[in-house]
């Protein structure tokens, strides 16, 4: 079986509309999920992949309704297990383009185990982790990414759970592609989605998604026009880490410590700054640790973009290689021989 699909001719003519299914969308008006759906649908024709070769698999949650709205193959499965289902599908059919849609509860709580194992195995598929820092579908309990002190129905006195830092977790789980996008930055998201599909291995894209019903404004610090430039750091491979409303701030590495420097005083210039290198695991590890509350004084800016990308063998690649070598060693399978085994006898 080929690991890659041939490009089909009619694929050139697809438009975003071709990826819209006939189902009515049931998300709350204003939900961040709409924007993500729209970007995904608009990116699909650019992939050069036929509709029938694309599969969306999700778990359970508001975000996980996603496959119903895509006019491709899809499966809305069970809570937390889309990761495992997608792994099996990819092992069976490595040539398919598989997309996994999951929420912060789905992937980091009930499905946390499968997520880390998928990442280390590095199946070639794309994970879109919709992080709204809340359980949307079950009407607003805190999630493993909710901040300490969060008051929800299940935590009227405030949450006492220390949250996950999802991308740091993924780095720890041997992820080969780690990125972050934002529902309110559609153009940037599209770029990341394209790169995710191009990456041969498991691409993990965390997407900050606003749940305007149960956790409105959770990412306001990164979407608010006044604030976002000072709080966000957009990563570009080979370019210096500059941010701020007037591109007036930069980052340097002082040993292992990231430090914000002022580019207006003359003490530092752009040429002094840390140059982003997607291939550097150590720096990516540090970048995923930029996880400060943006309202805190001297908070490090929150990075968006591709933190890390590594080419490593894919599970399915190794799997098919083994099957092939074994066939060469043991010869064409012969069921009669297998059934007879090595110690058979005849009764006349």
């Amino acid at each position, binding site marked *: 079986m080929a690991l890659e699909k041939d490009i089909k001719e009619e694929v050139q003519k697809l438009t975003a509309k071709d990826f819209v299914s006939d189902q009515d969308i049931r998300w709350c008006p204003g939900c961040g999920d709409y924007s993500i759906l729209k970007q995904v649908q608009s990116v699909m024709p650019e992939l050069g992949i036929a509709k029938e070769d694309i599969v969306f698999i999700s778990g359970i949650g508001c975000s996980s309704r996603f496959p119903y709205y895509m006019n491709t193959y899809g499966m809305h499965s069970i809570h937390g297990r889309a990761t*495992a289902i997608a792994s099996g599908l990819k092992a069976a059919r490595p040539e398919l383009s598989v997309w996994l849609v999951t929420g912060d509860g789905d992937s980091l709580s009930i499905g946390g185990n499968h997520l880390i194992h998928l990442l280390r195995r590095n199946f070639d598929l794309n994970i879109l982790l919709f992080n709204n820092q809340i359980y949307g579908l079950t009407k607003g309990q805190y999630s493993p990414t909710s901040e300490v002190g969060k008051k929800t129905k299940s935590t009227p006195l405030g949450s006492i759970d220390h949250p996950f830092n999802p991308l740091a977790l993924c780095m720890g789980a041997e992820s080969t592609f780690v990125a972050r996008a934002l529902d309110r930055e559609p153009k940037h998201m599209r770029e990341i989605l394209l790169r995710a599909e191009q990456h041969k291995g498991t691409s993990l894209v965390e997407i900050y998604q606003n749940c305007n019903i149960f956790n409105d404004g959770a990412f306001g610090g990164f979407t608010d026009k006044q604030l976002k430039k000072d709080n966000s750091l957009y990563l570009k491979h080979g370019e210096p880490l500059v941010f701020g409303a007037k591109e007036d701030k930069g980052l340097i590495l002082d040993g292992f410590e990231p430090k914000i420097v002022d580019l207006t005083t003359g003490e530092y210039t752009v040429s002094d700054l840390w140059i982003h290198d997607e291939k550097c695991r150590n720096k990516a590890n540090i970048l995923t640790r930029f996880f400060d509350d943006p309202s805190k004084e001297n908070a490090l800016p929150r990075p968006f973009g591709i933190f890390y990308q590594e080419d490593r063998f894919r599970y399915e690649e190794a799997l098919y290689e083994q099957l092939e070598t074994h066939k060469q060693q043991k010869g064409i399978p012969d069921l009669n021989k297998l059934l007879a085994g090595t110690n058979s006898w005849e009764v006349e």
Partner: protein
Amino acid sequence: MTQVQQKLEQVTVLFAGDSGDGIQLTGTQFTTNTALFGNDLSTFPDFPAEIRAPLGTIAGVSGFQIHFGSVDIYSPGDRCDVLVVMNAAALKKNISRLKERGTIIVNTSGFDKRNLRLAGIKEVENPLNNHSLEGFKVHEFDITKLTRESLKDSKLGTKDRDRSKNMFVLGFVYWMYNRKIDSSIDFLKAKFAAKPEILDANITVLKAGYHFADTCETFSNRFEVKPTKMATGSYRNIIGNQATALGLIAAAHKSKLDLFYGGYPITPASDILHELAKHKNFGIKTFQAEDEIAGICAAIGASFGGDLAVTASSGPGIALKGEALGLAMMLEIPLVVVNVQRGGPSTGLPTKTEQADLMQAVYGRNGEAPIPVIAATSPSDCFTMAYEACRIAIEFMTPVFFLSDGYIANGAEPWRYPKASDLKEINVQFAKERSQDDPAYLPYKRNEKFVREWAIPGTKGVEHRLGGLEKDKETGNVSYEPENHEYMVKVRAQKIAEIANHIPEQDLDNGTEKSKLLVLGWGSTYGSIKTVVKELATEGIDIAHAQIKYIQPMPRNLGDLLSKFDKILIPEMNNGQLITLIRDQYLVDAKPLNKIKGVPFEAREIKEAILNMLKN
């Protein structure tokens, strides 16, 4: 030299010793030899629960029982004729399983102070000295010493030399039953090809044991168990889990699908994964997942992609798979779930056998979620039923439970294996491509057997979305319509019920509808029940026996068949599960016979229950 031969119809030998004594290897070698010799046979390995239980203790005793004969053999035998014990613990644990006047072959070096203490026996109560074994024929040898002597020229260290003492026992027993030792020499040559010194030592000791038996004049005669008259055909020896793996491979090969196996190691199911992993040249994708949930979910993904997908586990692992099983049932995609049952509940008795997961298989899901359930009756029947599980899963687009258990999974017997061309065809119906001019695709439209199509990704024009939410009866779109839900629940049940028209009718394995009593079993109790009814027949007592292999749905004539009998006895290795299903479905007044001791029925237990029931 002793040349007198005593002919025997059947013999049961139990090898027992410390788990480090190589008992299982001795047993399987003797089994292969016995099979090749042409005897019918049945085996029962009994592993200790711990991998390295303390040496010399009762907990560390490993056993291997083989029952072979010139007559047909259906079970590993209740009690043994010959007990081979390597140490005091092995004797203490198994003496109750030896027949009166049975033979004991004792390794005396396993009865020193230390071994007695480890077995919890006071020195003064050493059974070799205290006359407690007087009713038996006891043959004592210092096997450790004899092994060392035969290896006095070997360069191996003492530890390695002592390791081969199981070969001494094997050689000894080969001589007793008048066998050739070639099959084991071939085996050793293959196993130790890379270790010539160990190979030499093993062969030397094997031969030493054989010659020692010949010259020591322990036995005034050798025993001969003539080959069994078996139906013509090609035979091999097979272990249950191995047969299950072969059944799965055969079904994949026959249906021209790739086999995908997702699973997580668990006793006693792991050997299925091990066996499958050996045959990757058949294109078998084995996936050792992070847990049982991932194992079944990966299988669901692979099935969605068009592979023949399988997952196997045992009780606790099956419990974890519950939610995903419900999903597979809703998706209506093929999936085979093997449960090699072990003693439960919870972690229970991992290395012991039980039939206590029947209710779990039939009912163990949320909502109305019927799934076909079938069971194998013997080690070789695991092949047939694993194959059947695949056939039903594919042809009816449904998950299927295949129940085996520790007893038949680890047991062995001769198997008249089929030719690939004799296997039932398996019809795979993938949805075909559609063009834009065709009417919209309806993924949940059913055929006359209530089965929907298998539409796999990559097929143009039939893109669709599946999911665990209730779906519209044709489009498969999410539907909360009350009428639709009721319809879907019923039609899913109807599909499973329809399978009854595509499985064999229930037959009587023994007796007729006029017999005074029917023994109704399921799964692995087959051999024990069969042994009893055969024995009763020779005593002039006519008993009918039916063994159910298709449990959900049951064979369509089963109700009729049951109505012919006034007395029905249902023996089960559980607290009464099949009997509940039978009473529920057919309103018959069947009586239970339950054994929940982690070991299979002994024929005499079933016999006693039958005789009691006949009296009343």
